[in-house]
């Protein structure tokens, strides 16, 4: 469904992505892991249209979307939960969720999806009139995910959803990711928490200083000695 070919991204003289290629098939959970500064966030931001690549192509369902503005990519079904949640702090929880459906006009569909988000995250319903900046870190992560779901995405990007969360909450977030996937949304997941990510994902890519160095099924990578040493702490 999503295919990235030979993506090169520069920040001034920094060559942040050096020919990254990856594919995500319909219905999969694919994870992208790697050390700090490897280029994971840059990869997602480039696919979402926030960063213009120097070269390479991004295609969605076979159509080239490399030159499209971010807005059109959202319209085509890409939704992105950015690193650090990035909820709109001075707006209410409900307003944040409504902004997730910014491009949609089907009022009934939006209302239905809003209910779905509230079912997934009952706490967001209780807090719907409260400004998002007052939520706890975990609640903000739920809001960020809920907001992204409001565009009814076909593919969802998650950038370190477990960052800064307590272990119990990490487990919960991963369960939610799985259930979102089971209800038909394809997922591209960036994680520092490699063991959880590999357990959850169908396939995985390892990014090292801007290049994909290893790829394979989640299980395979979880067993690999190199990966264990470098990313799984043993």
């Amino acid at each position, binding site marked *: 469904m999503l295919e990235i070919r030979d993506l090169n991204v520069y920040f001034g003289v920094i060559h942040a992505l050096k020919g990254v290629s990856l594919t995500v098939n319909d219905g999969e959970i694919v994870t992208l892991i790697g050390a700090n500064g490897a280029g994971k966030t840059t990869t997602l*931001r480039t696919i979402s249209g926030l960063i213009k690549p120097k070269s390479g192509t991004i295609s969605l369902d076979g159509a080239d979307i490399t030159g499209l503005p971010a*807005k059109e990519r*959202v319209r085509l079904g890409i939704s992105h939960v950015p690193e650090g949640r990035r909820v709109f702090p001075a*707006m209410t929880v409900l307003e944040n969720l409504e902004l997730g459906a910014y491009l949609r006009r089907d009022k009934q569909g939006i209302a239905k999806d809003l209910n779905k988000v509230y079912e997934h995250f009952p706490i967001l319903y209780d807090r719907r009139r409260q400004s998002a*900046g007052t939520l706890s*870190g975990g609640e903000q992560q739920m809001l960020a995910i809920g*907001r*992204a779901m409001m565009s009814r995405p076909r593919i969802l990007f998650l950038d370190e959803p477990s960052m800064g969360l307590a272990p119990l909450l990490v487990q919960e977030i991963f369960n939610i990711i799985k259930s979102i996937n089971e209800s038909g949304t394809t997922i591209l997941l960036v994680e520092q928490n490699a063991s959880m990510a590999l357990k959850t994902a169908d396939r995985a890519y390892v990014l090292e200083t801007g290049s994909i160095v290893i790829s394979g099924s989640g299980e395979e990578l979880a067993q690999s000695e190199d990966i264990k040493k470098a990313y799984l702490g043993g």
Partner: protein
Amino acid sequence: MDQFIQQIINGISLGSIYALIALGYTMVYGIIKLINFAHCDVYMLGAYIGYYCMTFLHLGVVPSLLIAMILCTLLGVLIEKIAYKPLRNATRIAVLITAIGVSLFLEYGTMYFVSPQVRTFPPHIVKSMSAGIKLGNINLTFMQLMIVSVTVLLMVLLQLTVKRTRIGKAMRAVSLDVDAAELMGINVDTTISFTFALGSALAGAAGVLVGLYYNSINPLMGLLPGLKAFVAAVFGGIGIIPGAMIGGYFIGMVETFVAGYGYSMYRDAVVFAILILILIVKPAGLLGRNVREKV
């Protein structure tokens, strides 16, 4: 007592004007973190447009006001497109200097076309506007009523736009987090244009109202009110819409009272003293707070 009430009436009128101008500063600052120096010149041009509508087209006050607002809207959008948009990724100082350049260009460009001469509005309009209600020694002119009611109406419309409409929500989102807004599918450029449009429409209205109120316009008339409105915006908390409203009324009131009680010479100085004070005591402004985001 009468004098006190009279000062309050005058202060509210002046404050309305500052509030209208301050809103434009604050909205633009909120969305692109730019102090738009050219804003006070849009206000000045609004006054000229009103003047020409009344003097040469013999239009009434309300149609002139509307035309000034519409043309200022276009002007504001145009300024943003030509001068600021190409600098979207430039340093803030570069954009700031550009804004000063645009401001000078508008001031001296206007001067070239209309001459630096001070103009006054058609006497019959001025006369009808300065008629009013007299209660003892208190004087409430039709002009003051108009200033206050137009301002309140525009502020209500603005609040509804920002709080309730789709584009208003987009404005708030972009001003909070550009990247996240873009990920929602919001067109950031359109939203910024719209913000300039709103601010400029308000400035255009303020220009016509002030021109009539003081019955005197010239190409540099924007400078001082512009600065004071800017102080008002900072006082209320730059980037915060209700802050600009409160700040505008506060500055207008202070200035009127200082002048009204015989310290006319200090009226401008006091306003800038307030700026210095607020920057020392509460730099984020009255309603501003340092929003800490959780990581």
